Each structure stands twice: as structure tokens, then as C-alpha cells.
């Protein structure tokens, strides 16, 4: 089994995104590093627009992730509602 992961710059928006990831991905592991946060999930990591919107208290467009992203691992699929990283293994 491989870990899909995503890392963000530490800021207020990404704090909400990370909370949403933790809610939607049981088994997510948070690695807090200076000025960045990396989250690993075995095989599949999903970010749901709806959960992030709820955490932020405003409409969130998943493409806003572009602003805070540092790196990703996994095959990406992006729709209006979900940003998914998956490893086939």
C-alpha cells in the first residue's frame, strides 16, 4: 500500500482545508513541519468542496487549492466537487 499525500503552506485557508481532509479521510496522518503541513492517507486522499466550504464559512472553489499547494503524490482527478489523489497498488 502506498500513501497519497498533499502538502500546503501554513495559513488560515489551508488550516480549514486540512480540517476538511481530516474529516473526510479516516486514517489521515498529519506531519507538521516549519511553515508547511503534509498529510498522508493510505492509497486515496480526497478533498471535498462541500466540507471545505463548511469549514471556511464561505463558498470555496477547489481550484483555489492552487494558491496554497506545495506538492502532491498520487494520480489526480479533479472535478467541481472533489479533488482526489489515488495510487493503484
Amino acid at each position: 500500500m502506498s500513501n497519497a499525500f498533499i502538502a500546503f503552506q501554513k495559513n488560515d485557508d489551508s488550516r480549514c482545508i486540512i480540517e476538511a481532509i481530516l474529516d473526510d479521510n479516516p486514517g489521515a496522518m498529519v506531519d507538521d513541519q516549519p511553515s508547511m503541513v503534509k498529510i498522508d492517507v493510505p492509497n486515496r486522499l480526497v478533498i471535498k468542496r462541500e466540507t471545505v466550504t463548511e469549514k471556511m464559512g464561505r463558498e470555496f472553489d477547489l481550484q483555489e487549492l492552487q494558491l496554497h499547494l506545495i506538492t502532491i503524490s498520487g494520480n489526480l482527478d479533479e472535478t467541481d466537487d472533489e479533488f482526489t489523489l489515488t495510487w493503484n497498488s
Partner: protein
Amino acid sequence: MDMKVAKKLGLKERYALMTRDLAWDTTYQPMDKVFPQTTYEGIKIHDWDKWEDPFRLTMDAYWKYQSEKERKLYAILDGFNQNNGHLSVTDARYINVLKLFLGSTPPLELMAARGFSMMGRQMNGAGPRVACQMQAVDEYRHFQTQIHSISNYNKYYNGMDEFAHQQSRMWYLSDGKSFFDDAITAGPFEFMVAIGFAFEYVLTNILFVPFISGAAYNGDMAAMTVGFSAQSDEARHMTLGLECIKFMLEQDPDNLPIVQRWIDKWTWRGTRKLASVGMMMDYMLPKRIMSFKEAWEMYVEENGGALFKDLARYGITIPKCFGQTIEEKEHVTHQSWIGFYMKPQATPFHTWIPTPDEMDWLSEKYPNTFDKYYRPVLEHLDAQEKAGNRFDNKTAPMNCQVCVSTMKFNEPGDPMEMCFRESIYQGEKFHTCSDHCKEIFDNEPEKYIQTFISSHQVLQGNCEPDGTDVNAADFKPGQNMLDYWKLDKRALGDFNGSDDQKNFAAWREQATKN
């Protein structure tokens, strides 16, 4: 009047309409004549429409988010510079890492911009063309923002102003230059594997993630913002590289051996380039968040391993060099730093012996190798320096014909033996640093015999400042190297006793009292 409100289009439809739908097939000339480069490498593509675009970024969204990134970045840079941010870094040794970064990275970003502009023209499909075009703009942005972020340091510290001149001439910058020269002179698909996979997936994951996190940890907000801003684009770049690999493998089974050879080759080339990045993490950051070895395990062994496992369904196997790279992760940074330390008159940045605390950290992080092989060397060099006999190797190094790293790596399985390989081509002998570089050479000797290696060319009188008479009776090759490189003499030598060390201490003193 009744108005029908059209339903907002979904991301996939929007992307399809704004990207592929705007493309057309040529009619005055056949498509294969308009796009001639995508066939000569032997890669067979049957249907360009099968190319997936995972990020589905349309051009308008691209400009919107990129301009937002730039505004954030320049706001932070202004704040950092206006507040004398350079004096808030941990200590003045740190600044040397920026000198090395400036020489080695922005010029490669510019090459990447050129390369992806070419790809944006050469790829037949509209999907990859648009993605490559965006990547070209990104790379140009990285080239500019990196120089901007470091320009403030250039006002105060020595050795940064001639990086563009030095890029094609300095012995230690040749490895990065050759990486991109090799990639850009290959065909479009090999370029995508070289940069999209090896450079983005293997290299930038270390350079712009743990190293930049480390820069932040050392108080350098400028490097932090520029590094992370760049890396926010790299996530898209890695995805493009990965997509290209999958696309080739899905299009035709005949593509597999070609792609496998490129993955083998470029994983190795990326790894060789990482030796100096790792050295920046282990030796040049005064405060460290993780060792190169740990970063390597996280981002290359595990993350690369995940990718190779994923690609196994297409028949891709783990690169041949992978075992050797794992063995070398405990050695290369120490070998690189000692190599640079030994040449104090040949780099525009300073070197030094790690403090006793730092050596203890290295022992802890490298329990199998540091105390056994490298601590004794560093302690010997330290004792010699304290006795007034600082090591100064004045000879030109020997470089590998393929990766153009200086020869300093060990024989596999034997850390006490330096590794050399040689190939004979057209009666001439060519040296490589490893079995993997030798294999790359032997596969395309016509290409690699053309490698320009300044430390070899100097012996033929080809690396002299303008106006030197190489036929004069008293001419000695190499005696003008400092002028040829345009090396600032204040930037040479050990960190101890340097102008940078003295100035930083004096300015910081001023910053804390009247």
C-alpha cells in the same frame, strides 16, 4: 421578457470547451508535417484525444490564480526586505546556501521555460500543448522571482552578481547545466520524462519542499515565499509529467522499452544532481529540520516507490539504479561538502567545518556512515585549518562525461574506493562516474562526446578571459581561471574570517542597539 438562465458549466465541460474545442486540425498541410518531432524518438501515438488533463485548468483560471500568487509573493518580499530581513536569518553561513542556489537554480528554470515553450509547439494534442504552455510561463516566473528574492541579499553579501556568467563556465554548475542541455536536445517525449518526471518528481520535491521548509526555519522569508510559490506550480508540473508517461504507455505496447530506458536514465541523472541539494540541507542550513537521508526516504524512496508500483500495471519496473541510490543516500552529501571545502579558491560561496554540535547531529542522522568515514576527515581538516594549514586543492577537478559531476562518488559497496568508469569511442577514452552514467554514455556516445567540461577544456586553453594569448611562450593553462569565472575574490575562502561574517555580525549589532 423571460430569460432562460443557463446552467453553469461543470469543470470538465468548461475545460473541454475552453481548451480542446479551440484547437483545430490543419488542412493546408498534414498534421504530421506540422508536428514532425513527435515521431522520431520511436514513440507511437494513435489518439491524442486520449490524453487526460487532470488539473483541468483553463487559461482564465490560470491567470487568475497565478496573479494572486504573485501578489502574495511580492507583498512578502517587500515586507521582508523593508524590515532588514536578511539580518533575521540564523547566521551568516546560511547566506552561502543562497549563493549556491542562485547559481544553480534560476538558470535551469529559464532552460525549463525554453524547453516547455518548445513542447507547447511540438506536441500534437491540444491538451498537452496548453499544459506545456502554462508550464513555460510558470518556469519563467520561477526564474524571475528567484532572482528577485535573492537580489536583496546581493546588496549586502559577496559572490552573487556574476551567476549568469558563471552558469556556463563554473565547474560545479556544469552538472545542472548538462542535465537541461541533455533534456532539451532530446526529443519532446524524452524531455517530458526528464523534466516532468525526474526534475519535478525527484528533484524539486526535495529542493522546494524540505529544503525550503528549512530555509523558513532559518528565518529566510524571501526564500520561503519564492520556494513555496514555485512549488505550488510544481504540483501541476509533476502531474503533467506523470500523465505523459501514462499516456505513452497506454498508447502502444512498443513504447514500454523506450519509456523504461528514459526512466532508468533520468532517475539516475536526477539523483546525481541531488547530491549538492542534499549537501545544502545537511551542511549549509545552520538549523536543520531533517537530514537529506530522511527527505530522500520520504520523497524519493517512498513517493517514487509508490509511482513505480503504480506504473507496474503497464510493465514498468523499478529503475536499475534505485538500489545504488539507496546505498548512496548515506554518503553523497558528506562527499559533496568535503569536495567543496577542499576548493576554497574556486567557488563564489564560503565553506566551513561543521561545529562539534553539528557533527553530533550528523552522527545521529547518519549512524552507519558519518563517524566511520566522514567525521575523521572533517576533524583532520579542522585540525589542519587551526594549525594555519587550511586545505586548498588548486588542481582542476575531473568530471563525469555524462552527469558532469566531479568525480567523488564511491565504488558501490566500498566507500573507501573512488568510482571511475571508462568507455572508448572512436579511439578516444571517456570517463564516467558510475556504471549508470557509463551506460547512458554507451547508449548515445555521439551525444555525450560533445559535453563541454570546463575543467577539462581549460587544459586545452579554451577557458581563458578575453584577450589571453594562449600561444604565448609563458602561457600556462588555468592560471587565469578566477578571471574567466569572474569570481569576486571577497567571496572566496573559508567562512571564518570572511567579509560576510564580519559585516553580518556588525550589522546585527547595529540592529539591536543604538
